[in-house]
């Protein structure tokens, strides 16, 4: 069939999910939270990677949900799963032992090294915003093979020169604390925002602009980023989702529009 592209907005969940799904080519095991990552993994299974396996921090491995999961602890993920492990086993034996290839993370702030803030905006003692905190992200970042971050905003507040707080550190920050404590994982490899796809090729390197979404320029992205962001040698335009990808998301994956608004 000839591929026809959809015109959904680059800021739409459909667009972000489709771009995220394409990052999963060749990956075996993904550690994902609820929401967009779930859509991306489900879409990847139906398109680029039928064998990709999802592991949830609730302990569920090899889920075969009969319905769309609302949350990582949804009973539909348990019924018919291949395994439900205790959290000591999931975090210790599966994640920390290195069985997870890709971790999907969100964040309120990300810096040039791919360190994440999910804890506080403003002062730690009396924050202007108390964010949800570390959750499992502080474990996923060092122990997953690589992490993909999806941001709903792209502005200097979300991509600042300095984080208000570092919840889940890049290997760069681990290296600064102690070169011998650099974790096994690469840290953030890819950041998907409403404007661009950033990549971090070097484990101890910086993020760089790799793809720019249709209708935007490298300068637009630069202007919206809180630091002098690097630019890859060969910046491409981000491939739009196909009509089929959008159809799958809307008509087969999230039929009740739980995450697609």
């Amino acid at each position, binding site marked *: 069939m000839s591929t026809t592209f959809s015109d959904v907005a680059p800021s739409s969940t459909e667009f972000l999910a489709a771009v995220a799904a394409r990052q999963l080519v060749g990956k075996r095991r993904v550690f994902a939270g*609820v929401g967009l990552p779930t859509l991306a993994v489900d879409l990847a299974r139906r398109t680029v990677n039928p064998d990709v396996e999802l592991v949830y*921090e*609730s*302990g*569920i491995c090899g889920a075969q949900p009969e319905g769309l999961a*609302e*949350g*990582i*602890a*949804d*009973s539909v993920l*348990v*019924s*018919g799963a291949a395994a*439900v492990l*205790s*959290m*000591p086993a999931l*975090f*210790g034996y599966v*994640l*920390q032992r290195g069985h997870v290839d890709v971790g999907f993370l969100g964040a309120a702030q990300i810096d040039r090294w791919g*360190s994440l803030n999910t*804890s506080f905006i403003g002062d*730690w003692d*009396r*924050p*202007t*915003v*108390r*964010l*949800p*905190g*570390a*959750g*499992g*992200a*502080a*474990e996923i970042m*060092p*122990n997953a093979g690589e992490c993909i971050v999806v941001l709903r905003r792209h502005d200097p507040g979300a991509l600042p020169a300095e984080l208000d*707080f*570092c*919840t*889940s*550190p*890049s*290997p*760069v*920050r*681990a*290296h*600064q*604390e*102690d070169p*011998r*404590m*650099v*974790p096994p994982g690469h840290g953030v490899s890819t950041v998907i925002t409403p404007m661009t796809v950033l990549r971090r090729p070097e484990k101890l390197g910086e993020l760089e602009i790799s793809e720019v979404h249709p209708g935007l320029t490298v300068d637009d992205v630069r202007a919206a980023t809180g630091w002098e962001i690097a630019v890859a040698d060969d910046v491409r335009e981000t491939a739009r989702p196909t009509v089929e990808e959008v159809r799958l998301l809307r008509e087969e994956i999230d039929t009740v529009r739980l995450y697609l608004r």
Partner: protein
Amino acid sequence: MAAPDKVTDLTSAVATHVRDGMTVALEGFGHLIPFAAGHEIIRQGRRDLTFCRMTPDLLADQMIAAGCVSKLVASFFASGSAGSLREVRRRVESADPAPLEVEEYSHYGMVCRYQAGAAGLPFFPLRSYAGSDLPKLNPLIRKVSDPYGGPDIYVVPPLRPDVTILHAQRADRSGNVQMWGIVGAQQEAAYAAETVIVTVEEIVEEDVVRSDPNRTVLPAHAVTAVIECPGGAHPSYTQGHYDRDNAFYREWTPISRDREAVLDWLEEWVHRVPDRAAYLDKLGAERWAGLGVAPRPSQPVDFGRRVAQEAS
């Protein structure tokens, strides 16, 4: 051999074992959240609790709003579809109506604290936190050097609640507790505690439990009191019994935004309700029926029975 009967009612269990100023853990990772027990604590007006829960969600918002909690020990301060916990945020962001002390870890950090507490260890190592600001925020997250020449590694101290409260599918009268579906870190949270209270959907005969000893997450020796409390996890769920009340979680978001609305809700759904049975009546048969699940039984496994062998 007659094991002691540990079955009691929730009112007595909380009155007997949960006292002001105690460190109390209510665990259940999105599943088997002991809401009925939490509401009983609110009803009995406990104060100054150090409340331990990896994922403080609606239950934390409610117990904090009710004034039971002076300190929170946790690793994720939000509630999936219900969004952020406004009561927690009001207190942390603007000490409104009072400040709330928070001791913060990551999920695995909390799991490791329970593991250390359960195993009687002085600390538990984990490969997180290198380069993170969390150890600066929480000085209880420390480092030890590796006696085998590797790099330093972070450790967390044991968490030893005075009381851990859990919900499960079933138990026998002597307190052997069985649960299935997501079991989280409940075994560790229970063994870490001095006193363990477990509410269950049903008290079953001893042979039901003994037909499948591998299903027992907490043997009787680790359990202080058992309470039959059907629906005790609502609005969260109990695998195989009833589903999560997702609508309820969504309804909480607007309530949580307004402290008065939270207090009104507590008055209506906790203080004016004597127990969980009354709460379910108030919830209504129709709504409850809407949370029902169709049967999906596990296929039995065989434990076998000895056929006399020659002791040659």
